[in-house]
């Protein structure tokens, strides 16, 4: 079953009398457990597509169904709630809360979900362990490297038990070693826990790891390839 169904999606920005068709008639489906990359040159609409998919921005036209919920039908307060329960986010520039430690950053979202404290702590430690940050849980973001911060961000994205994780250029600010490390962790989580990742990237090494590669150009999909042996096709 598809967890995401996108049909005829458009996004048009009105910039000083010039209309920018940032996403042009995109239709796409994602299934649970996918590990998909969205690639394309700068300005091709990757971020715009991911933002709409994450309910952070409104489409000009078209429809996004997540688990059969039409995002456009949600009130703005319900949409926030929906994001909290269903979607994990990883941002290019980490965007952790600087005054909180790694552990607290991960716990924060569970706190927003009003989960019991014990559960929060247990899950946080498991997640920080999974992203290889055991022992650094009490460090604030400023004391962590970019790679480490991004791994905290991945742990945070998973803390809310989302249906899928959206990551807009998660490795753009990382060196090659950290990039490789982060990708390994994400792949591992995908394999072992069947977590769906959809990420955009410029980096060929990241593209190579993806099980499915969607290429955008001028807001349109020009190719959508699945690699063999990844099992996410039907």
């Amino acid at each position, binding site marked *: 079953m598809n967890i995401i169904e996108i049909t005829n999606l458009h996004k048009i920005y009105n910039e000083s009398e010039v209309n920018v068709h940032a996403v042009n008639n995109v239709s796409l489906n994602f299934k649970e457990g996918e590990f998909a990359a969205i690639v394309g040159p700068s300005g091709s609409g990757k971020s715009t597509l991911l933002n709409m998919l994450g309910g952070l*921005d409104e489409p000009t036209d078209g429809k996004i169904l997540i688990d059969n919920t039409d995002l456009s039908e949600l009130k703005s307060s319900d949409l926030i709630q929906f994001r909290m329960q269903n979607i994990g986010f990883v941002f290019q520039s980490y965007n952790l809360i600087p005054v909180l430690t790694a552990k607290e950053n991960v716990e924060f979202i569970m706190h*927003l979900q009003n989960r019991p404290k014990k559960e929060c702590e247990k899950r946080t430690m498991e997640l920080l362990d999974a992203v290889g940050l055991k022992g650094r849980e009490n460090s604030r973001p400023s004391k962590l490297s970019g790679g480490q911060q991004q791994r905290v961000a991945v742990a945070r994205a998973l803390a*809310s038990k989302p249906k899928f994780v959206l990551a807009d250029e998660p490795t753009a600010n990382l060196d090659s070693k950290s990039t490789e490390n982060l990708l390994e962790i994400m792949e591992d989580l995908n394999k072992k826990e069947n977590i769906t990742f959809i990420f955009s990237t410029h980096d060929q090494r990241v593209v190579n790891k993806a099980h499915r590669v969607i290429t955008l150009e001028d807001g349109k999909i020009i190719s959508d390839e699945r690699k063999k042996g990844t099992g996410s096709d039907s």
Partner: protein
Amino acid sequence: MIRSVAWRNIWRSPLRSGIIIAAISVGMSAGVFTTTFTKGWMNQRLEAGVETEASHIRIQQPKFGENYDLKESIPNSESLVNEISKLDHINGISPRIVIQSMLASAETGTGVKIIGINPEKEKTVTNLHSKLSEGKYFEGVKRNPILIGAKLAKKLKVKMRSKVVITVQDASGNITGGAFRVCGIFDITSGMFEETNVFVRKTDLARLLDLESSVSHEILVHLDDTELIDQQSLLLKNKHKNLLVQTWKESMPELGYINEIGNLYTYIFVIIILLALGFGIVNTMLMVILERIKELGMLMAIGMSKARIFGMLMLETVLLTFTGGFTGILLGLGATYATMEKGIDLSDYAAGLEDMGYSSHIYPVVELETLVTIAILVLITGIAASVYPARKALKYNPAEAIRTE
């Protein structure tokens, strides 16, 4: 957790937060000190007014106050005094003869209120006996002793043992006069009272006026508990409907309002300070939010509701304001306690104050109620100052906010 985030956020920019906290604490310490200072000042005026001039309850004929008519005396005043003295909580009771008349010295004369008292009974209702700067309380002069105020003595150019003449119209309408000799000079905070009131023995005045010595125009009552004044006065009012029974607040209305006016002034002062500080706080929070748009966008993205973000920013503003406010209140209290013992002497700058009955040496007084009110005002300022910046923060859409650098 949101509480802890809000608190830690304040200290992200210690200099900026420090400056606004310092501004708030300076403003609030000034506010608190002004309040305790004014309170002390007003209390001193109140005490002087009540304990020296008005006592607690005054009883007269309803019409007596209109033109101090000799004939408007209290009927059966002796039995009334007896009756009242049997009530509970009565500390003292003093019947008086009161007339308006001319008082003349060898040099000059002036109109005054002449109060005939029983010296011993008067001691139980006012503290006049303890306010003498010269002479003794009805001692040292055998015939017709008189107590006059320091200001009046100066005006009439009289000294101790000087002779003064009281000219009156007696009960049968004849103009008559009596010579009195100054046995003491009282010096109190209220220059006005000093200048317009003199005290003689009730028996001497009755003789001069050709009245029975049992006649009284007013009865002053002093209670052992100031909290009971209203209650006891109501009791007397209901019992003696034909008489005018007044608490000090009613007999000296300008004293009655003094507390309210003092409080009003200080609250207005504090509110003005807080208003000015409020703009500073709004400005600080706008800067904070501008700097943190990206982070706020992220919080919205991951699912923090607008209400919660609003609450967090409001909490942050309130904590910031309260930190400053609390420090300021402590500083203001510190200044108060530092000056409480010795008081503050303003006599060099404010000589005119005494004419109006205000002391020029002020002892600040701390009152819990006003401190609580100030704390609440600080809290309200914090909440009010947070609304505009917090609303502004919520205007961004998350995608936009995250893209900002």
